[in-house]
């Protein structure tokens, strides 16, 4: 029976709704703060071949594409004829799942009328896997904690108790880990149930025709969008702060009639700190950035992702090989959009935004090890702050806004209720947005201290402290990030472990985004409005924008 297109379309919408339901359930049941505050998850539905048909829009770009590839890998690792209803497979291998050990991926075969017809899968960030913890200090993957190769977590509905004990025994946060794995299981099971309901409701026995329709339609629409682009190859270099030394990232973007290629040849090699990036993760952010410009309305699936092909020489810092340390792979991973936009803007100068703060400024604070054992004194929080985004070709950048990541910032009142810290200030930084006809978004100025006069440890892994966001088409750079302890303290480097003593205040300034177009082209009205708002100083207005005295 051939189904009419409108019926297929309705089923497609249903699949998208089902994955969204899965994603929401996962976030609501999550324990990991980065998951519930920032939606660091993904959920997807796959056909019998392991091709991704739908992925939840909720979630972070870090999982785009990684899950699509991971399920293919797991699908090939286990024989389908041996799968039973109620089985669930799992791994946190960074090179299979999502780039570091914290991301756990589960995959469940979906049975309908006693046959596997497809798979549901989801990924979530667990709080702690032992090792040196979330930070760049590991010198190889073994320092970073527990790696679980692909295995069967649930067998016909029974959780493998030993496996769960191992995950708990190797974590500082065993309870939260267990809670998050429960949430992942519930997410897979709910998706599988909805999917078999759907087959029953629509009276179909498999997903084959629907899968082909979704993938063909999406691939064709993506190719159509690519066909409108100029053809050729463009190169860009992005210098990033790195750990001890600056690092050069290179990208070659090639646009052909029916696909896009990005190659990271020329990029510097891995280093012995955990900021190396497995290629699956670099690919995720690169493809995300490209899809924001090229066919953003087309849903994520095997068809829409297929025309984007990302390659890199093995061993470069964007294609780290085991056993390289990768815990903070997001620090550089989140810089790849600016890297590839530097290529794309040469092809599309009027479409692509300027560089932004890009890498999120997360601020993991923990009590010092010698602190007493009372609950009141022991704490660990991860505050997330963002800088400004790059100015867009027809709009200002967004101040204090996450891009490319999808994280949410923390609220002062909830932070102060949850941890013994006092936030003295959190305001926008005037003049931090790169000047331009369209101004870059502003960074923030934050001041934090301990309320109980204890030493606090800070684990930094941020960017744009030495290398600010560049403007485009004559727009100027945004302000650099700046981190110090006390007003007259020296500036800290972008990465490392630091101690804030009792009575001291951490001062933390996030970077601004780059401007777009020459500053003197900015309309007098917009400039005056920025001056009235105190976003641009009168001095800057005169000197940089050329405002009359």
């Amino acid at each position, binding site marked *: 029976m051939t189904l009419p297109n*409108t019926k297929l379309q309705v089923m497609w*919408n249903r699949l998208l709704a089902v994955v969204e339901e899965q994603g929401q359930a996962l976030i609501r049941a999550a324990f990991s703060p980065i998951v*519930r505050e920032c939606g660091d998850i993904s959920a997807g539905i796959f056909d019998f071949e392991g091709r991704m048909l739908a992925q939840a829009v909720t979630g972070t770009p870090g999982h785009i594409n990684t899950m699509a590839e991971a399920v293919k890998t797991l699908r090939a690792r286990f024989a389908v004829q041996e799968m039973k209803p109620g089985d669930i497979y799992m791994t946190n291998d960074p090179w299979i799942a999502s780039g570091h050990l914290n991301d756990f991926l589960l995959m469940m075969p979906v049975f309908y009328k006693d046959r596997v017809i497809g798979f549901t899968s989801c990924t979530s960030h667990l709080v702690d896997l032992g090792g040196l913890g979330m930070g760049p200090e590991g010198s190889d993957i073994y320092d970073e904690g527990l790696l679980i190769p692909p295995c069967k977590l649930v067998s016909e509905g029974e959780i493998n108790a030993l496996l769960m004990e191992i995950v708990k025994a190797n974590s500082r946060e065993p309870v939260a880990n267990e809670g998050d794995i429960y949430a992942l299981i*519930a997410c897979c099971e709910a998706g599988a149930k909805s999917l078999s309901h759907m087959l029953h409701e629509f009276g179909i026995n498999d997903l084959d025709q629907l899968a082909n329709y979704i993938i063909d339609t999406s691939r064709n629409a993506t190719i159509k969008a690519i066909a409108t682009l100029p053809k050729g190859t463009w190169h860009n270099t992005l210098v990033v702060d790195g750990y001890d030394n600056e690092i050069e990232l290179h990208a070659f973007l090639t646009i052909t009639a029916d696909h896009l290629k990005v190659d990271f040849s020329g990029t510097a090699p891995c280093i012995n700190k955990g900021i190396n990036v497995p290629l699956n993760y670099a690919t995720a952010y690169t493809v995300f950035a490209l899809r924001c410009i090229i066919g953003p309305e087309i849903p994520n699936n095997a068809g829409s992702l297929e025309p984007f092909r990302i390659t890199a020489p093995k061993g470069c810092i964007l294609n780290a090989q085991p056993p390289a340390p990768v815990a903070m792979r997001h620090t550089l991973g989140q810089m790849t959009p600016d890297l590839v936009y530097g290529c794309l803007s040469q092809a599309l100068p009027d479409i692509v935004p300027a560089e932004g703060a890009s890498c999120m400024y997360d601020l993991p604070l923990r009590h010092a090890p010698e602190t007493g054992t009372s609950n009141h004194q022991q704490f660990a929080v991860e505050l*997330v702050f963002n800088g400004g985004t790059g100015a867009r070709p*027809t709009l200002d950048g967004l101040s204090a806004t996450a891009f490319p990541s999808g994280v949410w910032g923390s609220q*002062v009142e909830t932070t*102060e209720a949850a941890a013994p810290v006092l936030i003295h200030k959190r305001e*926008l930084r005037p003049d931090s947005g790169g000047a331009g006809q369209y101004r870059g978004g502003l960074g923030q100025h934050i001041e934090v201290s301990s309320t109980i006069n204890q030493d606090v440890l800070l684990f930094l892994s941020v960017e744009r402290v030495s290398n600010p966001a560049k403007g485009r088409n004559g727009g100027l750079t945004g302000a650099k990030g700046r981190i110090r302890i006390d007003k007259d303290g020296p500036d800290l480097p972008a990465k490392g472990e630091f101690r804030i003593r009792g009575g001291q205040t951490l001062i933390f300034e996030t970077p601004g985004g780059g401007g777009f177009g020459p500053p003197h082209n900015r309309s007098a009205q917009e400039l005056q409005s920025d001056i009235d708002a105190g976003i641009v100083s009168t001095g800057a207005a005169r000197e940089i924008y050329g405002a009359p005295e």
Partner: protein
Amino acid sequence: MTTTDGLRLAIDIGGTFTDTVLMSAANTVLATAKTPTTPATPALAAIDGAVRVLETSGVHWSQITTFIHGTTLATNALIERRGAKVATITTDGFRDILQIAYERRYSQYAINIEKPDLIVPRKHALTIGGRMNAQGQELAPLNEVAVSDIANTLRAGGIEAVAICLLHAYANPAHELRLRALLRGELPNLVISLSHEVSPEAREFDRLCTTIANAYIQPLMAGYLADIQRRFVEKGLGCPVLMMTAGGGMTTLETAARLPIRLVESGPAGGAILAARLAAETGERQVLSFDMGGTTAKLSLIDDFRPQMSRKFEISRAARFIKGSGMPVRIPVIEMIEIGAGGGSIASVDTLGRVAVGPRSAGSIPGPVGFGKGGTEATVTDADIALGYIDPDRFAEGRLKIDRIASEHALVQGIGTQLLLNAEGAATAITEIVDEAMASAARMHAVESGKEASDRLMIAFGGNGPLHATRLARRAGIRRILIPHDPGVGSAVGFLFAPVSFEIIRSYYTTLQAVDLEALNALFASMYHEAETVVRAGASQGMLTQRRVAFMRYKGQGHEIEVDLGPDPLDPADIAQLSANFEAEYARQFGRRVPGMTIEVLNWGLSLSSQAPALAACPDQPEIRLPSAQSTRRIWCNITDRWQNAAVFLRSHLGKGDRFAGPALIIEPQTTTFVSADFRADIDGRGNIWLTSEQETTT
């Protein structure tokens, strides 16, 4: 003061129409009126409607003992930006709470998004020294000497209203209260909203936004409320005016003037109250309320005869139906999902060659193409016209001429030519997409609350609800539908069943093991006292119903679950029960409880309400009768996929016990009920229409 002995009058002023309903003590609708809203002076249409229903039923003003009013004025003032010039005062160092918000883009792939306009520009964002901590202890005193400078700035800026939101004011409001007193001394006419009064919950961005929204509409609403009272008293109204709130309860004019933000979205709340009332009358414990109008569809869940409540919703979204793109407002509100799917929603073909419907709407002007008022783009209503579900000669009692040819032409032009479909093919595609969108919304909405949409009774009303009910039901796995009396004025009818009520939420963080019961019971006592004062002003006699809840979660989670506490002070023995209740609710929502976890509580809620009008006795099951149709119509049957005859009934001619099979159309003045071929219609002892799917009738 308010009694249910006499006659009750309800007036719902909507964007397009003002609906008026007069009801007897026995809860019988005596008269209804639909009059065009008069935006310049909304009271005119309200008076007009009231006069009409009183004349129709031969009733005098003095016989009215309860008057309930709901208006979109507050909502519209926010949407149309017709409020006061507002400034904010926040704690020194925190000028940019509004600008920084949650640091988030509401749409992941959209590079060119713009953030919502949050009313107060940065130049009107002022700060003052002084600091409380999360426990409510003062770390630095209020900088009182700065107040005169602030007053000067406000004066110079021509500021009419001020929203004051100081850090941790929910834990200790002393600085906010003192600042108000000092500002009053300087500027006696300034309207001042304090965050701890408007929304006493932690999270400064949400609290500030709510306080701003309240301050913004306060001057306008105060004037409006005084005006409407004066006009109705002049007419001869002898009872107080009660206002409908978003939370589904009534409140006095005094409370409404102080907290006007609670009046937004009161119309849709009325619809949910009606559905809850019908659920109670028919003993249905799991209901989905479905209200589909011209621009949007609203869905809400009703469990155990109570609409699901929420503490947050969004106004003035930058992208109308995208969650997170608007200004959050934290007030008690009936939880509903609103999507851009109404009769006027416009259909188009997207870049992937797929049919897309809404959220753009043709509204009432220019309206659907078939209405012949200038619309040129095919809408959902045009699809329903082309499929034969709307009778061109009987629509809106024949007052509006329907041009079916124009509808069909627009369907072919806008959709058909691109997808190689004829008019009925295009129309089918549109209705399938819009019905699936509503079904998905229903499922998503249920899932977000840990519930299921399927297997519920659907109560459908609004101008297009009865028309799309069977189509939506099939997709959402729903097998039974109830269409009430007067579905076109459902919200106003709902007002008449609302209790006088007030709800308060307070933040007090504790783990369940470490809870200080003395402090908690004192907190509840003060909340009770505050709520009682407000409720007794509108319902001086009769029993009050109290509901206490805790918002709980496993320590480390971010999403709270609401758990009932019972009305009495807690003693140590209650803690184990509370823990068990939480875990039972958790297991219900997430499949498995998580063993060995600490449980924490963030917020505590108390709501107090008067008794709603008593339920009438259940009439006997009427004897089944098989009525004959008034006529037949050719319709596109969505089950057999072909044109066939449908029986046409006039609702006014149907009687208790009547039963007939689909496909059929039931026509009444403001709407049509489409009984699709897979459903059967029955009229119950109260005159409600029940639609039951074949699947259900055979099992």
